[in-house]
């Protein structure tokens, strides 16, 4: 316990890491200001309109009267409702029954078509249950969901991963940098020190994550009132947004999910991401015995995983590799704005994010075990 406390102290007394944390916090503040802070009056006025309509979707007549209102915000809101209220009516996925599918289709194509059929049934479920008829800030106008999850959350996730890597490598390399490594290696207790270091680094990483989330997210919600809106399902027609291809599309959650549930699931996945980064950091350092090489390996791995999906086929000849390329931690981080919602047919099944992270956790654990065994057998240099 004394060792753990001392290792913890080393990390907590490192000004460079706190400096980096402060820079990240400042950057998040800039993101919040850029995305919602600058339009806080508009958002507040929209919230007032939602309050006046009792947080229910106005009917056709009410929407029409809102659309012709002199108040610009009200008229914008009314027009949005008239345009997109029935978006799920005109939207569906292709369905081809197994009997009607051409024989030359590969297993992968068949799987994609199954997923397309599942999405079609999910869209029907949304329509029938009325999941889409819930109010929120109109996404094409205020981009609240996009700002919160794609801009802010994605950036926080990357920052937490960077801080985790740095925290681990800093502590693992501490003895080498201080010239006390040989002494630590001499005794059995000395070698166990690295396990204590791992535990301390994980605790501090969690602390950084809690602080970053705990300071950035409330700042976001200072500008975006969310009272009565937390239970809005993600699949509400209010979340209709412009895609990168210039199409208009609602956010279709793969299972019925409210914003609160989605937030909780995100926190759970974030914890898994921290664990994954921690395991890889420990494994890389134990294997390479150098923080510089570990950082280079991290950077190279990140870039390879980033470009990998672009080099794999997506059509007939695509297979399991293409599917796995979409489930790498890097790809999942890139797509973190669209976790639990439809991104593409390749990842259109429930729990794809959890499956991807678990797969990589398993890989990292195996790598970590190998590295630890190798480290224990190591002679003094």
């Amino acid at each position, binding site marked *: 316990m004394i060792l753990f406390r001392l290792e913890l102290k080393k990390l907590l007394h490192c000004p460079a890491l706190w400096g980096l944390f402060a820079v990240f916090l400042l950057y998040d503040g800039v993101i919040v200001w850029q995305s919602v802070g600058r339009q806080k009056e508009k958002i507040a006025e929209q919230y007032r309109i939602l309050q006046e309509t009792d947080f229910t979707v106005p009917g056709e007549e009410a929407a029409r009267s809102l659309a012709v209102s002199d108040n610009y915000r009200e008229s914008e809101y009314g027009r949005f409702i008239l345009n997109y209220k029935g978006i799920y009516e005109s939207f569906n996925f292709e369905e081809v029954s197994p009997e009607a599918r051409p024989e030359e289709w590969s297993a992968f194509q068949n799987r994609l078509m199954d997923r397309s059929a599942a999405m079609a049934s999910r869209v029907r479920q949304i329509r029938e249950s009325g999941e889409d008829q819930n109010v929120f800030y109109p996404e094409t106008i205020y981009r609240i969901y996009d700002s919160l999850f794609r801009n802010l959350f994605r950036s926080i996730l990357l920052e937490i991963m960077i801080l985790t890597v740095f925290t681990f*490598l800093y502590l693992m390399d501490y003895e080498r940098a201080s010239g006390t490594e040989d002494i630590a290696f001499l005794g059995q207790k000395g070698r166990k020190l690295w396990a204590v270091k791992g535990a301390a680094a994980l605790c501090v990483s969690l602390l950084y994550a809690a602080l970053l989330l705990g300071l950035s997210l409330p700042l976001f919600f200072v500008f975006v009132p969310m009272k009565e809106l937390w239970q809005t399902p993600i699949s509400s027609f209010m979340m209709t947004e412009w895609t990168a291809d210039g199409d208009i599309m609602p956010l279709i959650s793969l299972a019925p999910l409210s914003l609160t549930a989605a937030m909780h699931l995100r926190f759970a996945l974030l914890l898994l991401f921290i664990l994954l980064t921690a395991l890889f950091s420990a494994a890389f350092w134990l294997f390479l015995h150098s923080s510089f090489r570990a950082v280079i390996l991290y950077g190279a791995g990140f870039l390879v995983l980033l470009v990998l999906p672009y080099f794999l086929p997506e059509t007939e000849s695509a297979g399991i590799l293409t599917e796995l390329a979409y489930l790498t931690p890097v790809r999942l981080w890139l797509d973190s704005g669209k976790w639990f919602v439809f991104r593409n047919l390749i990842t259109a099944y429930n729990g794809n994010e959890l499956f991807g992270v678990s797969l990589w956790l398993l890989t990292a654990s195996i790598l970590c075990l190998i590295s630890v065994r190798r480290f224990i057998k190591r002679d003094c240099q």
Partner: protein
Amino acid sequence: MRVFGKECRKLFRPGRSLGLLLFMAAALVLISRTAQFPDTHDKAYEELVKEYGPTLDQAEYQTLLKAKSVYIEELGGEGWSRDRVHWAEIMADESKRQFVFLVDAIERIEEEIQFGYGFAFEKEPTETLKEQLRSCTPQEAARILFIVQTKELPLSSPGICEIMESDPLLLLILVLIGCGVLILPYQLLDKNLETASLMVSTRVGRRIFHLKIRACAAAGAAAAFVAALLHLALLWLNGVMIFWNVPVCGLGLRGIPFWVDLTFGQYLLLWIGLLVLAGITAALLCALAARLSGSFITALTLALPALAIYGWGIHACTAVPLSLWYGDTFPASLFRTAGVPLLVLAALTLASEIVLRLDARRDIL
């Protein structure tokens, strides 16, 4: 000089240097706009430059218009683009397809002249141009009017302008990464090998700190040169060099309004100069970050935000140097392009000098 050579050898370790070189080359090939050059539209402008040279005078423009009618005849006369069956046939035929893009390129030039973006000497500005001039300062308006009153119309392509706008940022990022990879471990080498105390114990040893900073600056410049050379090689391989003498100062999609008349080659040389300046500054930043740190991770923790802020700032100042896009005057634009990077470099050199002097007075590090 001998010690400096040894320090440089420590800096440019073969494996690390080769890895960095491969990384830079791969990034340029995979991400840069140059790697996608020439697309079908650029090929048409390439043909025009081969035939007419870097610019068009009015006589050549008339010849070009005649050539356009010949191309249209080859494509099946007026209305060729509306016939969908015919269109499919044209696109299947390689030689005819080239005519399509040539016609497209000539029509774009015609359109620009109609908008009053070229050959506008002794003419009143068109409505389109007047609309643009309304949001300009008097100096900018005067410069734009000077640009459009050209008697020689540049034959640059939209792809060239895209290269000018997007590739410099990629090169800057590569140079910043290069500086980090080369300098941070090098500056910490003596601490890791525990030879720093030995160094500071003698006068000659203490002088090595000066040499180390110089070696770092040289490494930054070298990283910038290598990135620029790789980019030039890619430009040459993809046939962009044919546009070297083509003026790029203009309005519309085929030009950027600059405060001075620049050709594509001159613009590239200007950017290489700025990149070298950025490389040296980034090298000094990394050297200082490593000097203030005890381990690679702390150095990286300091260098990462410092490089990111520097890169963002320098990109904001010099993304398209000397262009009219920033809404300032020519002297302000010149200061933004050259003055700001030089001032930052001067400040960092001063900071390095102060750190070196403090080191010289210290007993043991």
